[in-house]
């Protein structure tokens, strides 16, 4: 696979697209396997501060897998093994000295399907604060988080109601509020709009634009239009079939979003962003 090797080399060179001092997250030769199956290989990329970085690519290209490396959520998946290094600031998240629980407060996550806790709207926000030993004013935290997530107006009179009683779009904004209530530095979003209708999607995308001022956002998306709408940087992943027939992903191209979409350097990227496959 000589062409493949070449792609890897180039992907590695693309470190340079992000100013090193601005990087909040950095991966070095990350390789993920599930049991004996390779899922993702040799990913090296920097995620810049206060920017939105989109991870795009066809199914099975490992973009969600990479996202879960950033807050060690892969720990929950049986048989998942991460090799290489994932740095948050100057700390290797996979070093044995790191407590994954405290990683997850600083690096929050919003999931594909809205998954509020089966608790009141109020408790949905305060739960994370409580388990992390928050000592401030809970009421204030709830109001601020919901306001930041553009949900306060809709729910301020029914904070005691169950989070599951909200509509899908509201649930997802509740999940975003829940994530930012912990005052994280990074918010990871795994296809946050894939189960939402277009109106809710637009609201969440607007929200992402606003949140960018305070947070670094990494978003996985299937939707290329969404990537162009919300992101500053885009990483394109592709999937390849290995000898035993299973698919693994690798980073093809990583650059500023407009460059990836308007002037891609790789043929695969060109094909993907122009809708020829995927």
């Amino acid at each position, binding site marked *: 696979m000589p062409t493949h090797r070449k792609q890897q080399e180039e992907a590695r060179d693309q470190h340079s697209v992000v100013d090193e001092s601005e990087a909040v997250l950095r991966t070095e030769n990350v390789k993920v396997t599930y049991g004996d199956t390779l899922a993702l290989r040799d990913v090296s990329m920097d995620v810049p501060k206060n920017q939105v970085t989109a991870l795009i690519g066809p199914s099975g290209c490992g973009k969600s897998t990479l996202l879960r490396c950033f807050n060690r959520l892969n720990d*929950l998946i049986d048989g998942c093994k991460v090799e290489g290094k994932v740095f948050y600031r100057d700390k290797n998240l996979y070093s044995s000295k790191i407590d994954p*629980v405290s990683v*997850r*407060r600083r690096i929050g996550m919003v999931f594909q*399907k809205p*998954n509020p806790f*089966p608790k009141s709207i109020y408790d949905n926000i305060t*739960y994370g604060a409580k*388990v*992390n030993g928050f000592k401030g004013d809970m009421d204030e935290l709830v109001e601020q988080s919901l306001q930041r997530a553009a949900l306060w107006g809709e729910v301020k009179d029914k904070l005691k109601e169950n989070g599951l009683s909200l509509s899908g779009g509201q649930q997802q904004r509740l999940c975003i509020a829940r994530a930012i209530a912990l005052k994280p530095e990074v918010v990871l979003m795994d296809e946050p709009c894939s189960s939402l209708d277009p109106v809710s999607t637009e609201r969440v995308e607007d929200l992402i634009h606003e949140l960018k001022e305070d947070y670094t956002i990494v978003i996985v998306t299937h939707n290329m239009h969404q990537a162009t709408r919300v992101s500053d940087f885009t990483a394109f992943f592709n999937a390849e079939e290995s000898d035993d027939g299973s698919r693994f992903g690798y980073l093809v191209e990583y650059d500023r979003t407009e460059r990836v979409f308007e002037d891609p350097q790789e043929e695969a990227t060109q094909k993907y962003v122009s809708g020829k496959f995927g």
Partner: protein
Amino acid sequence: MTSTKQNWRSDEFDDDDMERSYSTQRTAIDLGLTILAFILLGVALLPLGLVIAFVIIRGGSRLNFDLFTGQIPAAGLEGGGIAPAIIGTLMVVGIAAAISIPFGVLAGIYLSEFSSGKIARWIRFFTNVLSGVPSIIMGLFAYGVVVLTTNTFSAFAGGFALAILMLPIVVRTTDESLQLVPPQVRWASTGVGASNFQTVLKIVLPAALGAILTGVTLAIARAAGETAPLIFTVLFSQFWPTGIWQPIPTLSVLVYNFAAVPYENQQELAWAASLILVLLILLTSISARIAARKSIY
């Protein structure tokens, strides 16, 4: 291509006019099978209706205040009630619940939340085996373990036997209820920085509580009606129970003892006790239903 198009006509199907007709074979079979299914449903429900009706008719005549307050009459005496047996049943079931619920729920939590695949599979398998063991064997086991070592038939021995009977039901329903909670909710909890233990205790368990409660209540209902494991563990007595280390009366054993004796008064009480037992189980089942309505997933 042309030939296919020519053959592709819809008038090859019958009932072209779309009007309802009862003469075609299809509608006739449809109607016939619906009626058959309805009749069979009636036949299946018949025993339930008959049992309840029979128990109400035979037991209803003694359904009065004395029944709930009076002592159990000795052979040949008139009047009396089954109050000690009601208390006895509540005691034995209470002991069984006190033993089986903590162990069962914790085992279920372990299975669903903390165990790894292979061990869990074996534990689940053996739990199922345990729930298939005939209840009289549970009684025999309790007899060997408790009665023989303490040298007395006792309420505790009976509770112990029923606890083993309830255990697999409690374990399995807890395990299944917890697995109904979607993994995404666990990820969310982990995602906000909760430990495994916090996730289980504060998110997963409350979400599954309704379902677990339902299972536990049904286990209690099942245990309350058991007779075989009690016959040679609790034995029987006609007196008020005053402790858990003595033989005490229970409803099911009272029915067993009194139903076939030649004294009419005792026979009537047996029927009345059956009625109370059925009502007790009905009541528990209804409360299980109510608990089930509270489940979230």
